[in-house]
């Protein structure tokens, strides 16, 4: 078991390095905006741009820059550990901004996760059990809708209907929990629902399909033949087998969300990692961009690692793949 964990950990580190390398290539080697130029003002001279480039460390060859980036990340820099460097735009450490915004993104993701698990899975189970009935059809209809709707449109429609027309929801933006819990909730509830709707729909469909598949297995028939109550059959045997794939999936999905739900944050104007990274990309603020990439990649890989370990614990066959 420990061997498995160690192997997986090494894989996490490797994936992290690969992703940051690719991100480096995309954002440093072909940046949308040359950061030295972006901060050189209205009347730049070539010398000025050279100076800024030197200040930002951009005059080094690519591999040197990347090496420095990795070193700084793992060993920390003058602003603390882990070292994300300083933002070109604000000349302040990226860390502060990253962590402040990560808090908001986590709130968004966690809240949405709670909603979609509480809504999606039960719907899927009920649908799976009552297969073919009206309940099933209605639930799957809802799920289909959720799967097909574009997130940004859904968000806009929600704002239009619930905020503008009916006036029962708060508008866009974010109010900190510590500042005003009521308003915090008011501003979070719509993004939570919009984000969760899509996942809930997917998970409902998946749980249903998985449950139906499982329930068709021989051992379920055996259990029934043994005389166990239907409920016992479903809950004790059916669910356990059908829900395990969801664990894996949840890990990845949640991990991805932690890296910043770009579209939801944009539509609802939340100051999370998603809006931060989009802003940074177009301002040429490369350290900030890389910071978000690292956090996001870390979140995904760590979550899938956790989930895989749990899975391996539950199903020993997995450990040998």
């Amino acid at each position: 078991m420990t061997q498995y964990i160690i192997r997986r950990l090494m894989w996490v580190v490797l994936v992290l390095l690969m992703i940051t390398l690719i991100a480096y290539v995309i954002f440093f080697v072909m940046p949308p905006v040359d950061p030295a130029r972006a901060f050189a003002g209205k009347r730049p001279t070539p010398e000025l741009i050279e100076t800024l480039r030197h200040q930002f460390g951009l005059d080094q060859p690519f591999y040197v820059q990347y090496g420095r980036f990795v070193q700084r990340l793992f060993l920390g820099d003058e602003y603390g550990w882990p070292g994300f460097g300083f933002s070109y735009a604000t000349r302040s450490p990226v860390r502060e901004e990253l962590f402040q915004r990560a808090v908001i993104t986590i709130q968004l993701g966690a809240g949405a996760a709670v909603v979609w698990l509480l809504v999606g899975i039960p719907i899927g189970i009920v649908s799976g059990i009552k297969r073919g009935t009206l309940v099933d059809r209605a639930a799957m209809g809802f799920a289909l809708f959720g799967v097909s709707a574009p997130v940004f449109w859904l968000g806009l429609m929600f704002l239009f209907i619930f905020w503008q027309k009916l006036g029962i929801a708060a508008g866009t933006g974010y109010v900190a929990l510590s500042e005003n819990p009521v308003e915090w909730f008011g501003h979070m509830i719509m993004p939570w629902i919009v984000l969760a709707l899509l996942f809930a729909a997917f998970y409902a469909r998946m749980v249903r399909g998985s449950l139906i598949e499982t329930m068709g297995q021989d051992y379920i028939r055996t259990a029934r033949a043994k005389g166990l109550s239907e409920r016992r059959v479903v809950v004790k045997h059916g669910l356990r087998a059908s829900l395990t794939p969801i664990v894996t999936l949840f890990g990845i999905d949640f991990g991805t969300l932690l890296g910043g739900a770009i579209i939801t944050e944009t539509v609802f104007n939340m100051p999370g990692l998603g809006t931060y990274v989009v802003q940074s990309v177009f301002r040429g603020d490369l350290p900030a961009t890389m910071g978000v990439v690292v956090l996001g990649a870390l979140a995904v890989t760590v979550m899938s690692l956790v989930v895989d370990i749990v899975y391996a614990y539950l199903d020993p066959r997995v450990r040998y793949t």
Partner: protein
Amino acid sequence: MTQIAAEPFPAPEPHAPEFDAVPSTQVEGRSPWQLFWSRFRKDRVALAGLAFIALLVAIALAAPLIAELVGHGPNDRFQREMTDEFGLPKGPTGEFWFGADQVGRDVFVRIVYGARTSLAVALGATGAALSVGIVLGMMAGYRGGWVDTVVSRTVDIILSMPVLLFAIGIVAACSTTAEGCLGGLVKPGFRLVIFVIALFSWPYVARIVRGQTLSIREKEFIEASRSMGAGGRRIMFREVLPNLMAPIIVYGTLLIPTNILFEAALSYLGLGVPQTIPSWGRMIADGGALFDVAWWLMLFPGLFLLATTLAFNLVGDGLRDALDPRTQA
């Protein structure tokens, strides 16, 4: 692989997980296609979806005709009639069924043309993703060894990437020089969008194909071919591939709506096709800022987008159910 069972699908926001429940479609006796079709026909909802898609394709093809009937082209501006002095558009009227946009263009006609864009991009990107994914997936599954390792690890890495962010980065990066990326091969616009979408879609196809190939590889008829002296490539393309068609069709069909949404999301962020080519995502984005005074700009394209993805999902579900009797509702 350490991921068992669930094969997540790409989507601009959440992953769209689907249950990997398609077994091999070896059905003895009658032609499997006939059986499949008779089952599919019974699924009325799926048929409705198919009908809608057919209608959409017809509309898309007939777009110029429709434009002529209505009397407005997709890029004809009626600025002075349909916008006020502040540049704000006017809503649905007798002549402009879905209202006008900020430069006075007919929203209805643009939606009709937008169907072309969504279909073209989705089909193009999905086709590209399928081609690459099938080839690499088959090779990885059949040959095993280092080919498998390389392909699988690449798939893993791409699937761990922050898709939308990298898409933004690539599109933005390729827009900054006059000639685009890869020596002018990938220019901003249609080609770039298809390239980016395909880039992030093929891993899903590859993973599924690989899984399927692995299980087919052990079947007797493959062994039989091999013992008769057939080479690897021949086996792959003549024996394995036909047996992959069923899951490929299913997943391909289910991949299309995901890619439609992906294109819409890229357009929403300002990274999609240029605006002379109407795109539903782009229309929603442009209308998003004005949704409080011009609700029609956002509502109609969104409804069409929703309906289209819904239709493809219904058809995909129907196909899957028809191909595997066990999961049939």
